[in-house]
């Protein structure tokens, strides 16, 4: 029983990171029909940018600031201007395929310019354990969970309680009408790309100390985020959060209770089941089919 509780906490911690990545993923889909197959690589890259800055001799916090700034520039603005804007007119599928090519490109770039070996990455959360209600819990797990929850709360507050958030939702739900009532739709779409870039940088900061910085990290992370987004519901931010947490827990539990060999299969089977029986996800609304 105690083992189960530990697994749950560790699962929620990784799940919270998946949730952050999945939320960014769904935001891009909602505002600009972008299925970002490079989302996992987007999470992998900021850690490498930060490592490069630290390699140049800067302290950790400076590296974090520059790393986040660079990912806003490259993965937010650059991604939108150089890839999404020119591809969007070709339709959803060519754009998705272009992001697959981008994923290969980013992965190879990290391998070439940095290293094919895994590099250690410092954690912003101090190591060690703390005791809560007589139980020993890794500070790392709690810290990740708290930071991720704060990020998600911040985002939902932004989306639901502020004027900018309402404008973003309007731009996502019906761009034509939003434009008529005076919402600067283009700026709102750019904002979602920047938010996504920030979220992936944050996820990178949280997960890389656990996984080490490796060029192939994106594959696992990207797949986990896709599955979280689909299981939760592609068109709902809270769906993506629930999906992320669920996948994190399922992942950890199946590592312990299913064979380690087929651990990776459990979330995939869950994904196929959800797509077959409830394609809109646990919390999503069905999308209307258009002719």
């Amino acid at each position, binding site marked *: 029983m105690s083992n189960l509780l530990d697994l749950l906490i560790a699962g929620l911690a990784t799940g919270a990171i998946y949730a952050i990545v999945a939320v960014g993923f769904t935001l891009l889909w909602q505002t600009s029909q972008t299925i970002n197959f490079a989302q996992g690589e987007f999470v992998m890259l900021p850690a490498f940018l930060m490592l490069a800055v630290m390699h140049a001799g800067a302290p950790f916090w400076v590296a974090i600031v520059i790393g986040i700034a660079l990912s806003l520039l490259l993965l937010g603005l650059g991604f939108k201007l150089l890839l999404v804007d020119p*591809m969007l007119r070709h*339709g959803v599928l060519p754009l998705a395929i272009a992001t697959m090519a981008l994923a290969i*490109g980013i992965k*190879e*770039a990290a391998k070439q310019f940095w290293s094919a070996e895994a590099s250690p990455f410092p954690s912003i959360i101090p190591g060690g354990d703390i005791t809560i209600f007589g139980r020993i819990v890794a500070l790392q797990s709690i810290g990740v969970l708290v930071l991720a929850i704060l990020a998600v709360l911040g985002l939902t507050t932004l989306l639901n309680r502020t004027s900018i958030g309402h404008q973003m939702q309007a731009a996502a739900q019906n761009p034509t009408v939003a434009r008529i009532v005076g919402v600067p739709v283009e700026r709102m779409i750019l904002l979602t790309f920047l938010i996504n870039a920030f979220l992936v940088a944050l996820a990178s900061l949280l997960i890389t100390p656990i996984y080490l910085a490796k060029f192939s990290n994106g594959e696992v992370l990207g797949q986990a985020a896709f599955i979280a987004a689909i299981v939760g519901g592609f068109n709902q931010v809270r769906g993506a959060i629930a999906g992320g947490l669920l996948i994190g827990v399922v992942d950890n539990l199946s590592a312990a209770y299913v064979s380690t060999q087929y651990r990776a*299969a459990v979330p*995939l089977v869950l994904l196929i089941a959800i*797509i077959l029986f409830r394609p809109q996800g646990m919390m999503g609304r069905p999308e209307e089919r258009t002719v």
Partner: protein
Amino acid sequence: MTAAKYPKIGFGIVVIAALIIVPMNFNRYGLFILSQWAVMTIAAMGLNLTLGYAGQVSLAQGAFVGIGAYAAAIMTSNGLPLIAALGVAIVLCFVIGWILGYPALRVQHHYLAFVTLAFSTLAFLVFRNEDWLTKGIYGISNIPRPEIFGYPTRRPLPFYYVCLGSLGIVSLAVWWLIRSPWGRAFIALRENPVRALSLGIDTRRYTLMAFAIGSALGGIAGTLYAPLTQYVDPVPFHLSLSLDLLMMVIVGGSGFFFGPFLGAMIAVLLPEWLRFTQGYYLMLYAIAVIGLLIYSPTGILGILDRFISERRTKAASALRAVAKAKLETAP
């Protein structure tokens, strides 16, 4: 139009003759690369049927190549002939492809991409973990090459001809298929599924068929892949093979008959020519693919097609202008 056909047929004959004659004095490695091109073209043609003609995304083609390769590896190393393995691979991939098509009846686009992606990863796990069948990470080695009509193909050149011959047979079959009512139904499915349905096309059956036939071609490619490399382990059939095959179809030109030939040539031969770029090759390839997609989402043949149709329109409007001038000057 018939006059324009002869240069095309002539060009085709020259290319086929070159593919047969030129490699005769190639070394072992050159023949391996060319055989690999033939095998990958078959797999990409299958994906082109599913994606290019029927418009159904699949990220699982690499898994079907894997299934075919394992079928060939397991059966031929137990003394069964390759042709039996081919039959098993085709039936197996057809059936699994058919089943994998079912989600496509419910969901489209990215959802379908994810289902097939999940299938691809599951297949990889089975290849890696079912030691009793696939020998796991150690792989199956010393896969024999077949005898064709009693003639051994152990040496690289005869086996290259096996691959080329198979490519020829598959190409003819696909050529016939896309010109049959089935091919037209596939295109109708891609262009507008609702209209296709309202015209009385059984979209359900054709969607499943598009998956099943495309997957079976992946299986055929796999049964050639195993005797070609003579060693099969799970690594080559990772998700990245499916992505590579998708890139081949897209780069060459999805929905064009010759797209996979060109795409596979670029994907297989270009790394050899670009050796000097060392590890940067894949990065440059990815950037080039993105650039190409921005310029022309239907690939290289799409550019060619656009160029030709523009020239035709120009020629036609020039003729019209002449005709108009004549009409106006006429009394």
